[in-house]
């Protein structure tokens, strides 16, 4: 029950606020609903293809390939590839999160991950056409020309400031053995184990509610002869 409340917390808050607005300001309620509806429609179009591609990469593409293309030693080619992946992809930044995490867990560098996320957000090939249409050629091109180096610098800075091991950790204060279990999980938060995310699953395993066998992705790796999808232990 507690788990369910935690999972739907934001939705519950939203429902309460909408109810309040419905009672006091009917017109604002209707505007908000129509804006939310547009958001949801966008999400329904964008999320399924992005997540299907993400899942296929998880299952099919070996870590070595991702590491070679986007890893720490991929150099300028890796950066250009990251810019390319980000700018041709559709959808808002939240659609990029699960896809990027998969690439990271398979060996993409922190800097390339930031480059994909940022270019996914701000440089969009189809969006640039809309931008030219509304704000003019000069504006759009200057913005993109300034944004590309800015994104490369951001990748560099984030990589300097955040260590690989710090990524994917939600809290610092949990018990060490939960952490140990967690560190063995792929942290894709796919939920196939019936827990909302990998951290709750690790807690479940720690408390004896669940076993590691319930992690579908981990099981798959074992079948594949121990090839690691999850965090590298180096």
């Amino acid at each position, binding site marked *: 029950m507690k788990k369910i409340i935690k999972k739907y917390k934001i939705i519950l808050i939203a429902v309460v606020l909408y109810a309040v607005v419905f009672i006091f300001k009917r017109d604002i309620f209707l505007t908000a609903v129509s804006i939310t509806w547009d958001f949801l429609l966008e999400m329904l179009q964008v999320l399924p293809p992005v997540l299907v591609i993400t899942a296929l990469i998880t*299952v099919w593409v070996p870590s070595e390939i991702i590491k070679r293309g986007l890893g720490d030693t991929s150099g300028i080619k890796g950066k250009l590839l990251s810019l390319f992946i980000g700018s041709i992809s559709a959808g808002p930044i939240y659609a990029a999160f699960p896809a990027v995490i998969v690439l990271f867990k398979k060996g993409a560098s922190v800097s390339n991950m930031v480059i994909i996320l940022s270019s996914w957000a701000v440089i969009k*090939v189809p969006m640039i056409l809309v931008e030219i249409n509304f704000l003019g050629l000069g504006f759009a091109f200057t913005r993109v020309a300034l944004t590309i180096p800015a994104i490369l610098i951001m990748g560099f800075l984030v990589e300097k400031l955040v260590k690989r091991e710090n990524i994917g950790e939600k809290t610092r204060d949990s018990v060490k053995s939960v952490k140990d279990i967690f560190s063995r999980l792929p942290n894709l938060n796919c939920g196939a184990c019936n827990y909302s995310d990998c951290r709750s699953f690790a807690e479940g395993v720690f408390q004896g509610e669940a076993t590691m066998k319930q992690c579908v992705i981990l099981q798959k790796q074992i079948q594949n002869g121990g090839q690691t999808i999850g965090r590298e232990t180096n």
Partner: protein
Amino acid sequence: MATLIMIILAVGFLFFSIVKSRKKTKESVLIAKKLFLNTFIEVAGVMALVGLVLALLPPDLIKQLLGGESKILSTIYGALIGTVTIMPAFIAFPLSKSLYMSGAHLVTIAAFLTTLTMVGVATYPIELRQFGRKFTLVRNGISFIMALVIALGMGILL
């Protein structure tokens, strides 16, 4: 358009996958389904809240803040409003144009557009769960500063 290409790509890859291995495909679809449900539950609530904020925050108010006398102040407002809200491109660009028409400076609009898409208070909880606190804070912080730098550069060039 890009969405259509993504859908075609996804279907194409999926088809390839089925030809090569039915079992692996089934697994992929299962993972995709779980990822979708999780992301949907998470994002839907956030979107509902953003929708409410946008409805409460009328375009006129945004225009007032962004088209103010002080260029620096409006640019900072632009970056801040962009940070706390998310807007799909189809709303953001027309709004930017009408902001420009009603007197907002291009620098302000550049800051607004960049933080709008790259920095997210609204998507913060989602990013936090997937990437951890440190990464999320550092990425959003640096992105915010970079958005101001980009805006500054636009001010110099245009």
